[in-house]
């Protein structure tokens, strides 16, 4: 029974996926990686570290707003 339901869900999922269009950005996104002198650019600018820091920062900001909204909702702060 579980298998049947799982298969059913998977087929439904497949139908939905097949109906949706593929990513229009993928080809262009991949092309970014083939830009020449990217390695040299990375030698000057720490892109990977910047991305990591940005991710962490965004997470912190999101958490801040979540807590802020929660505290406002329960009227701990004005």
């Amino acid at each position: 029974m579980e298998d049947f339901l799982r298969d059913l869900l998977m087929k439904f999922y497949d139908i939905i996926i097949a109906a949706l269009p593929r990513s229009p950005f993928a080809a262009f996104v991949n092309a970014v990686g083939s830009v020449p002198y990217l390695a040299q650019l990375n030698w000057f600018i720490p892109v990977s570290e910047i991305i990591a820091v940005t991710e962490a920062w965004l997470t912190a900001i999101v958490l801040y707003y979540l807590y802020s909204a929660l505290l406002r909702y329960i009227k701990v702060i004005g």
Partner: protein
Amino acid sequence: MKQKFQIIKKYLTKFVCCLLISAIITCTTVYESPKILITEAAVETLATYGIMELIFAILAAAGVTVVGGVAIDELRDTDLNVSLDNFFSEVGDTLYEFNEEAFEESYNTLVVQSYLASYLQMACNGNGDSGDEDPEEPEPDKTKELLKKALRFLQIGTAGLYLDQEFNQYLAEINSGARASIGSYAKYGLTVEMLNNELFMQRFNKYFYDEDNHDFFGFYGETTANDVKQSAVGYILNYDYEGGVYNPNGYTSTYSDIKKFLVHYDDENMGVIIMNTSKLCVDIKNSKNGNDGSALKSVKVDNFKENVYYGVCTDSHIYHQDKITPIDLSRYYGFDYYITSDIGYLENNETALIDYCFDIYTNVVEVPQYVNLLRARAIASPSGFITNPDAIEMPIIPNGSVVTIPKVAEIQQLTDDISIAETQPEVGTRVQTALDTLIQPQTQVDPDTGADPAPNPNPSPEVNSTTPPDPDSSAAPDDDDDVDNYLTPGLKDVFPFCIPWDIYALFKNFTSGRSAPVIEFNLKSNRFGFNHTVRIDLSVFDEVAAICRTLELALYMMALAVGTRKLIGAE
């Protein structure tokens, strides 16, 4: 009232934006597998366990689909100083058809002392302890029969057969890495396409050249360090040798030919290329070593990141002549991440993998647990198979067949059945049927292989039930890259759900590789007869650049901090 409504609206907007951002971050974070540097202890643990156990692990891997041949490497006989390459060049390459005559002939000329043979011998004696207590040489016929049976069996059940002879410590380390690489398949349930050397090169040549042009050689076929340098290193990897001197800035392989090949081959910009770097390493270090390395394989993975190339290597050293050069392999080979268990430790205990490493086992403890579980239950376990080798007629698999390895639960059922198959004919039939259903001969055989398209004896069962159909597969039915069918578009591939991944990939693409600029220009004067190329290599400022990058990062963080004040309304 209106003012309050606007305030609420403002905060609601912020809240929704934050939720969206957090969703993007969560998606990207979850999608990225953990990066944990595997420890030396893990390597030792893996080395403790033999190859058979890890083959069992492969058997247990859910949904591993194997296409093509079996790679066998590094099997040698040290005592006789006879390479067993010939043995497997005859037997191994025709493994799917299992050339009995070649096996007999090769076997009789060699004393097989492989790990597998001794393992089988121990199994034949009843248990592992008896093998240790009884150091007598195994009966040749018995060992041969067991080895033959195992080889035939493994045709249907392995993603790679590494018979290793630990003829010296150096190669033993490599072998342990090879095992671990195989183990990684099991760990992540990868879908693997196995290509033997010939098949790989055929496809490689087909991409770069005409089908009939086989002048190009990749990692295979070279016998000298010079060949490796010129063809494998120089050509494939764009590795720049100048007068035999290693030039650390010469590699420009971030988007190397191999990667382009994979892009073409995968047609979906996703793939893993597995390299046993031993050939490269050994040959460069010691040209007279004829070690044939391992297969170069592309692996399709569902649960890895898209648009990211993973290199799987069994040795992270890059050897050049007598010098061990610490090098960032991610830059060297142009892959973004590496799957390896064999972190190369240099003389000063530095690891050769500087930037990236992708662990195959997140927990060392789980390795023996996993192996022990499989040892007791796996279908290839001596207790279930070797003691009754004639109970089942192992099927012969046409080259290029698709073999789906059963899941753990199915293996358990199968092993239970095998143990009683001899006495109960109906169970034997059931086992035979189960084994038959694992094999799906290819309907579209690669014309390069020359293999006859074998009819599918089991057309009804859909073995790859977990693999949803590819909507694009019908568009290119004549494409011999049949692995494309395994690449299933998920939510991350379709619009509009793909947007977070696309954004992530966009920025991620900027992070690949890092190398110092090298500027060359020519100074020429006919009047003074002067012609000289000036080469400005900024790699001498690597340390300075690192400091600059750190300062830039600090500046960026300060900017973020200042921006945060505005963002949260503290000003």
